[in-house]
């Protein structure tokens, strides 16, 4: 299948408006980080003991890694469900995932208050297998390594190392299997991280099935991200949108989304937690907003006719990203209350400096995506160009 659409570098200049803006934003991030590492977290963030985790954890790591599930979702489709026709989507999706995850891993360091000890998490004797965060850390680190291996044929191709590429391809199936297992493990565990917080998390988001919810939403948003990225890449590089692939993939996405919604709502009903959704509270408002985002794709691309419209696919992808983002923000921030109803006066809204770092990390991702797709064989060759 891949022979039909061999991946080729897009080419073109590396310095343009987009990369220059990214560069400036990255510089701003580095400035903030300098202050953070010299004076401490309090100097640049609005973190406090009522909200010890801010956007550096919740956006950069928890949401960032969910948004980086495109590679996982598409690879699972192609290699596990044997849907080879989607092969052209694998490399671009994997590239975005690779950067999403690598940066999530790097971003953790910015947030760690005692970052020089970070290796303890992998060290027998220090590592605590009872800790959900231990599982997440080990799994994400392993997955980053596996993804670089999965993606390395791109570099080997570029540098003409055909022998090494052939050798790697012989065992690639194992890394593909591992690359499917690991995200299943840590994407679910990212949700399980809420469990130990107990009744501090609103019952709308505190549930024993939270791992399943986070996993299903990560798979779904993986496809959503591919819709989003394919549309953005096509617009930015003035390429044809791979509609023949995105249409059926969007249908699959709606299927997984349906499963997610069934578990999500079924769980709320079974636990009798649905009442919280009808309380006059900020939590209830955000719950409905989250649910609306998850239902929106059905309204946008529910019919086969609607799925032929690239704009609608794009918007459905964004809706899913918003839903997955809100579910995580809601669980970890909006639905989280240290005081358990006893008001300690804690509140949190990210500082400008915190936002600059999150934006800067996103800029690194965009910049790297541009450089790599322009210089390395990632995106499928254009139909017109391929007709030789």
């Amino acid at each position, binding site marked *: 299948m891949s022979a039909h659409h061999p991946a080729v570098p897009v080419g073109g200049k590396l310095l343009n408006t987009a990369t220059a803006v990214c560069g400036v934003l990255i510089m701003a991030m580095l400035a903030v980080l300098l202050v953070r590492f010299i004076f401490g977290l309090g100097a640049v963030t609005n973190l406090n003991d009522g909200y010890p985790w801010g956007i550096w954890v919740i956006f950069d790591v928890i949401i960032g890694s969910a948004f980086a599930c495109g590679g996982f979702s598409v690879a699972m489709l192609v290699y596990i469900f044997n849907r080879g026709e989607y092969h052209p989507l694998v490399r671009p999706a994997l590239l975005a995932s690779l950067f999403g995850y690598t940066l999530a891993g790097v971003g953790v360091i910015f947030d760690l*208050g005692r970052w020089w000890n970070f290796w*303890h998490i992998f060290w027998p004797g220090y590592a605590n297998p009872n*800790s*959900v965060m231990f599982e997440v850390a080990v799994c994400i680190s392993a997955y980053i390594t596996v993804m670089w291996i999965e993606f390395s044929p791109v570099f080997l191709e570029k540098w003409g190392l055909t022998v090494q590429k052939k050798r790697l391809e012989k065992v690639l199936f194992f890394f593909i299997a591992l690359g499917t297992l690991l995200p*299943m493990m840590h994407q679910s565990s990212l949700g399980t991280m809420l469990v130990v917080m107990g009744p501090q998390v609103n019952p709308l988001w505190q549930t024993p099935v939270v791992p399943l919810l986070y996993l299903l939403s990560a798979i779904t948003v993986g496809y959503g991200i591919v819709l989003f990225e394919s549309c953005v890449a096509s617009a930015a590089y003035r390429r044809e949108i791979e509609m023949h692939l995105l249409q059926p993939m969007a249908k699959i996405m709606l*299927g997984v989304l349906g499963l997610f919604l069934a578990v999500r709502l079924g769980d709320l009903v079974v636990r009798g937690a649905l009442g919280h959704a009808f309380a006059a509270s900020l939590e209830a408002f955000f719950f409905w907003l989250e649910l609306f985002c998850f239902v929106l794709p059905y309204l946008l691309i529910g019919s086969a006719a609607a799925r032929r419209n690239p704009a609608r696919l794009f918007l459905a992808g964004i809706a899913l990203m918003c839903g997955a983002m809100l579910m995580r923000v809601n669980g970890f921030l909006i639905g989280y209350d240290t005081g358990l109803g006893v008001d300690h006066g804690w509140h949190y809204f990210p500082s400008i400096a915190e936002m600059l770092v999150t934006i800067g990390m996103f800029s690194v991702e965009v910049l790297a995506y541009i450089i790599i797709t322009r210089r390395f064989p990632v995106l499928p060759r254009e139909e017109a160009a391929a007709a030789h």
Partner: protein
Amino acid sequence: MKQPSHPHTEPEAGSQGRRNFLKRLLAGGAAAAAAVAPEVACARDTLQRPPEALGLLYDATLCVGCQACVAACKQANANPAEFTAVDKLWDTPLDTSGHTFNLIKMYRNGTMENKDAEQNGFAFMKTSCMHCADPSCVSACPVSAMTKNPVNGIVGYDPDICIGCRYCVAACPFGIPKYQYDSPTGQIGKCELCRHRHKDGHYSACAEVCPTGATLFGRSEDLLAEAKRRLALKPGEWTTMPRGRLPAKDETPEQAAQWKGPLNQDYQAQAGAYLQHVYGEKEYGGTQVLKLSAVNFQKVGMPDLPPKSSAATSETIQHTLYGGLIMPVAVLAGLTWVARRNVVAEAGEEQDKQGEA
């Protein structure tokens, strides 16, 4: 919804049998990997206090709000003063923090005429680590920087191990572990029951200095018995109240010699109008610090917690999924088998194409 349960729905020509098999395999694998049934073989019960657990008994009706314990705690832990008033004359923390491990907070209502009355009254409450039987912070800590001593049950912290992730801060339902955000090398700060002073014969500084015995140090078991004794008294009834350290009923002279300080500091006081509730006896599986109050515990800042600990729920899920790595390895084996077939098939296809060209 048209495809209720499975992504693999597009009709496709080819080997239906294998497809169906893969469908089933994947459905099984995914369900096994993700579906969570908490009450299974790996279920972990809520841990109980160890028999020799050490703790405190705080009796809010005896507390006069002098804050001597707050000052003693600062001194014992070499913590700096925290200023919130305009003239920086006294240590005036408004809450526990990375530099304040113990604080007496005040409840006020209406005219504040009566002590320990919910209406038009006031009351005190101690805020410090409860030393849970099954602490969330210990379960959450990815690097074992937060540990529970298996003998005395003290929840201790080691900054040399800590990575500063603050999961303990987020996990604790009492809001106890606090981080020092004002430092590039910030640590977690929390009460460790003065365990660093035990070898010199000193017990918890807060209990050592408390003039009324409102904070009492001892074995949790003995403290619980003492708490129940007080609850059985009629309000206003005169009784003997211990101060400092509560000796065990069966304490030997050798055991007593372990601790410094005068033993007999008892005095006569009147029993409070207690609520019939020893806070910490059952909350979250029980805590080693116990509390008595005449005013509703939620109103004085103690959360209403279930008897099951969140650590037990969290670890049950974690070990159900990953216990002995059985499930991940099984799923990996299945995935590898499927991926091998599909990747090899694809490579073959590719070669065929190249052959044609």
